[in-house]
């Protein structure tokens, strides 16, 4: 499956148009298999510029392998992989300067200070001594580590180390960034900050390829690839994935518990409502499955308005947590496997 710049499903002709726009990353039937038979298989995706591409899946599903293929650390066994118009294993020095990489684990030097570590990474990218001061300061400020610049990185907390790693990824102001599980082991507040940073970078026109085990983080991405056992089982925008998982959109409706049965009857008879589910925890809470929540809500109010005895306490489009969506997608995939 391929996705257009705006995130909606692309037709084959639209896809050709996207190719012409030169995607930042393009994977075509890419496969890389390790000796034990595990690996990644049949990877197909295009990532347009200025996108946050999230790769989500359980541990060991092939996320890091994919990142390593995209950064040239692994060579594809089959298929064609192009990153910034070059095959990753043949990256030129110039292309490498446009790439930022944040590995899964902290790889900086414990005996160097925050500033020295940043300085080291800036030197790796050949940044001149006089020109680097400002970008380094900006990167530190961006990750809110300016106050700790003279602290040894061994004395930083885990979260601060991840932030330092993020700053190191940013020092050369790359166009394309690969962050391999940047939020792993990070507290929820800091995770939200990370995604705030990522979106800010995206808004500056940068492209980010981010892997994560935290399913809830999918909501922050523009495009999501759901991985399972080395394969991308779904690739779409968060909204479209939600549709796929839930068979449409959901309206959350809260009524007087005494009216629930009557409301269910009315909803079942309405052609725009595909399904009705009752909450076990809250007696007056109903979830209505519809094709288009925005279009159905006025219709729903109209129908229920014809029954003055029914009091609607709340009715709104409901976005279920991505954990639920992810579980649903995984279950669907397992069901397809069994078939």
């Amino acid at each position: 499956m391929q996705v257009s710049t705006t995130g909606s499903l692309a037709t084959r002709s639209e896809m050709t148009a996207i190719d012409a726009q030169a995607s930042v990353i393009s994977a075509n039937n890419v496969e890389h298999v390790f000796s034990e038979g595990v690996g990644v298989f049949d990877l197909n995706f295009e990532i347009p510029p200025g996108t946050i591409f999230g790769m989500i899946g359980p541990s060991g599903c092939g996320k890091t392998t994919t990142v390593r293929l995209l950064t040239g650390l692994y060579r594809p066994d089959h298929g064609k992989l192009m990153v910034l118009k070059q095959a990753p294993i043949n990256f030129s020095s110039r292309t490498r300067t446009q790439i930022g990489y944040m590995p899964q684990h902290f790889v900086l030097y414990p005996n160097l200070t925050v500033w020295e570590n940043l300085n080291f990474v800036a030197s790796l990218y050949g940044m001149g001594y006089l020109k680097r001061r400002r970008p380094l300061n900006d990167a530190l400020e961006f990750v809110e580590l300016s106050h700790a610049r003279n602290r040894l990185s061994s004395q930083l907390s885990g979260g601060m180390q991840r932030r330092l790693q993020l700053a190191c990824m940013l020092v050369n102001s790359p166009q394309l960034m690969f962050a391999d599980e940047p939020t792993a082991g990070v507290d929820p507040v800091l995770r939200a900050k990370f995604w705030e940073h990522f979106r800010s970078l995206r808004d500056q026109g940068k492209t980010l390829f981010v892997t994560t085990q935290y399913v809830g983080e999918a909501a922050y991405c523009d495009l999501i690839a759901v991985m399972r056992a080395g394969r991308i089982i779904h690739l779409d925008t968060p909204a479209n994935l939600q549709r796929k998982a839930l068979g449409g959109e959901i309206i959350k409706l809260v009524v007087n518990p005494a009216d629930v049965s009557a409301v269910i009857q009315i909803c079942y008879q309405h052609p725009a409502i595909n399904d009705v589910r009752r909450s076990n925890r809250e007696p007056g809470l109903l979830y209505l499955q519809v094709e288009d929540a925005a279009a159905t809500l006025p219709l729903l109010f109209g129908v229920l308005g014809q029954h003055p005895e029914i009091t609607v306490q709340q009715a709104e489009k409901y976005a279920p947590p991505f954990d639920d969506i992810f579980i649903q997608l995984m279950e669907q995939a397992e069901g397809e496997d069994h078939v």
Partner: protein
Amino acid sequence: MFRPIIRLFAFFSKEVREIVRQPRLILSLLLGPFLILLLFGVGYQGERPKLRTALIVPAQGVDQAQLDALKKSIGLNFTIETVDSDLNGAMARLQAGQIEVVEVIPPQIQENLIGGKQSQVDFQYNQINPVNEQWIRYLAYAQVNEMNRFIQTQAITQMQTDLKNRGVESTIPPEVLAAPVMPTYRNLQGTSLAFMTFYAPGVMALMIQHIAVTLGALSLVRERLLGAVELFQVAPVSFMEVLLGKYLGYTLIIGVMAAALISLLVFTPLAVPFLGSIIFFAVLILLFTAAALGIGFMISVWSTSDSQAIQLSMLVLLMSMFFSGFFLPLENFTPAVQLVGFALPLTHAINGFQNIMLRGTLPADNTWILLAIIASVTFLLAVGGARWRFLQVE
């Protein structure tokens, strides 16, 4: 244009900072060799083993003058613990390790001589150390020679007295007749150096090599274990730049350390002389450090863990102690094994350090050439190995 230089200096300054941040490491690197030498200088008593000896004389006794002469000649080489006729008691003490040698003087040496027979001086020892055995045999040989000379002198004196009584006079002194040839010694250096002084350049070279090999060996393997190699592979940095940067950083640190160590050796009570050119000495240290670092980096390329890297560094140290001429002369080995010695930077460094520091002369051309060859070959192998090992795309 300047980017490769910037990248190279990234590693240079990183390595220097990382080591400078570990004052205990610097202290141990600097004070370690100094204290070892100090201990050696204070405690070493010479190469010849001290051999505690029980002297067994014939039960019927020996003439006191003869015994005194005997004890004097034996005492030159052996430390006489007891003088008696109790052979069994002496053998028991030899077995118990209380003495090293039992020397049995035969009875009736003079009578045997007159009778045309040789007497045997029996030396018994209980050694597993081949070097000590060689010393005992050599010293026993020297001592028996001395005894023979004494007996010959006595016999010649007796004969000359008899001949004189018969009217035949000899003008040649009995000592000359007994030993017509005597050795004389002259050292062009004046006097030989104290053991500590002689070994000081070697110990310093050994320490420099060990530090360089260990730093090099741990360097790349640690980067790999840390995961930084992954970062280098994605960044626009070549392994040539990585290694050259590390070479520069470590060479600077080792150079500063060597300078401090030399100062400690020369300007403290150890007073090791420094007679040669400081500039040539600096160049030699540079070449030697590069060669030793090359070996370290080769170890680092092949090691999969830091403990393996340390183990291999220790093997290089052990090999260097045996085959570099540090303790055992290289000439004592077969030509094939000598090649191993020539492949070690330490072999040439000891030679060069001793020449410059103790003799005030330049090392032989071979020293420079072979060190340059080792440095170049190990550098190329390390770069090639690192590229093959770390840049190999799976």
